[in-house]
């Protein structure tokens, strides 16, 4: 941190004379322009870019390819509301295709592949749209029936250039599939079972996940072991505005 600060300061010092020179040039060219017919300066569209780093904090829950969305003021899920089919597909099968294709999205990005426990992935996202100031990130814990982590509808409009913000994210349950942990129902490597199933046989309301039980802790029909248990938080997310 200290090193970083020092570097930043010295860069600033160097930048000052350059900036002044730049202003002088601008001033001169402005004078020249006075002779010509007045043309309003063209508005250069601003590009907003963000770099997001997601770290898997769990022991043995790979995370499905993370979906990153920018949109207007909206929430893609809410505790107490039914999950959309797009979210259900992400939460039950780890497939973010429909979630990324949602109509309200103004900019989208996806992680290339799954994020294994103890590893991180960085996803970059850019937009020219000044209204794309709300962030949603979602990823499935793949050794579960329908657990996902993420955040949604978070206002990032106040982020300044190079500013960084972090969250530790809890685990939701999409409420669309019973947590029976049964063979054939879990898409992750613990089972290799079916992901998305359109039948909704659970509470059908999004809520926080109660954790997996596993066959080692009292659910004999579970394909999961003690190793697949998790606790909150499961994911660390950091966003940095880069443009």
């Amino acid at each position, binding site marked *: 941190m200290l090193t970083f600060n020092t570097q930043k300061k010295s860069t600033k010092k160097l930048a000052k004379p350059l900036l002044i020179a730049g202003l002088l040039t601008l001033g001169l060219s402005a004078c020249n322009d006075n002779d010509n017919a007045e043309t309003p300066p063209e508005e250069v569209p601003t590009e907003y870019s963000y770099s997001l780093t997601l770290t898997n904090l769990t022991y043995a829950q790979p995370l499905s390819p993370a979906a990153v969305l920018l949109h207007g003021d909206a929430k893609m899920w809410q505790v*107490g509301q039914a999950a959309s089919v797009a979210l259900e597909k992400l939460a039950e099968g780890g497939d973010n295709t429909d979630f990324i294709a949602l109509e309200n999205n103004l900019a989208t990005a996806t992680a290339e592949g799954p994020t294994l426990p103890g590893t991180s992935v960085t996803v970059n996202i850019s937009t020219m749209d000044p209204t794309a100031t709300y962030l949603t990130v979602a990823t499935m814990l793949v050794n579960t029936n329908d657990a996902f982590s993420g955040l949604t509808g978070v206002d990032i409009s106040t982020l300044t250039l190079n500013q960084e913000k972090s969250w530790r994210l809890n685990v939701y349950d999409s409420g669309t599939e019973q947590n029976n942990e049964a063979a054939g129902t879990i898409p992750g490597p613990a089972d290799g079972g079916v992901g998305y199933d359109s039948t909704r046989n659970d509470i059908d309301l999004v*809520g926080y*996940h109660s954790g997996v039980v596993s066959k080692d802790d009292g659910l004999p029909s579970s394909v999961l072991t003690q190793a697949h248990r998790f*606790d909150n938080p499961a994911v660390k997310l950091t966003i940095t505005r880069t443009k």
Partner: protein
Amino acid sequence: MKVIKKSPITSTLSVLALALASSTTMAQELSITVTNLTQGLYFTPVITAAHTSENHIFMAGEMASDELQAMAEGGSISGLSSILTNADANINENPAGGLLAPAMSASFDLTNDSTNTHLSLTAMVLPSNDGFVGLDSWKIPEEAGTYTVFLNAYDAGTEANDELRGSGAPGEAGMPVPPPLDPLLGMNGTGVTDMESNDKVHIHRGSLGDSDMSAGTSDINNSVQRWLNPVAKLTITVK
């Protein structure tokens, strides 16, 4: 735990503090939403209070008061309500009009007097023997805005977590079973434990449960009625 207790010294200090603060501090208008984040737990009627900084309805690491015990074992908030009333707290009771079901929210307004600078909230979580969700004396911000607080589940330390159908009366074994919970619980469990070796308020270790609805050690369904913290979210708007 001695709750809502004022020693003569703190009372004097409170009067002084009031005199000093009255010129700058005003009563506040609060708009509060409590969300049950879980998919398998019910909350009994919620009690919320704004009170002075030296008061607590519970404190982790301290013994539960009789009033807290009655709430944590049976969901009764009348005892807590009366000690809070005696302490001139601003109180809201039962905003959900009964049980706050899984994933549901309840909203209410609360106006707090200028001396009632701290907020506490509690409700029993079901199914449990003496589990409760709690907020202990959170300082209410002076600046207008919306604040979010996540709440954990505590154990009152007053009853053994046998996880069996039983009584909600203080000091009696077992869990109270109100109607919506009746079909969701197992039966004929043999009991997880008859010991409560930690008699102080502590973070609940969670329920064990089992997968057998008609036998086993527990009447709690382990794939539905367990939880991970946090179990509740509080959204507080200071106007």
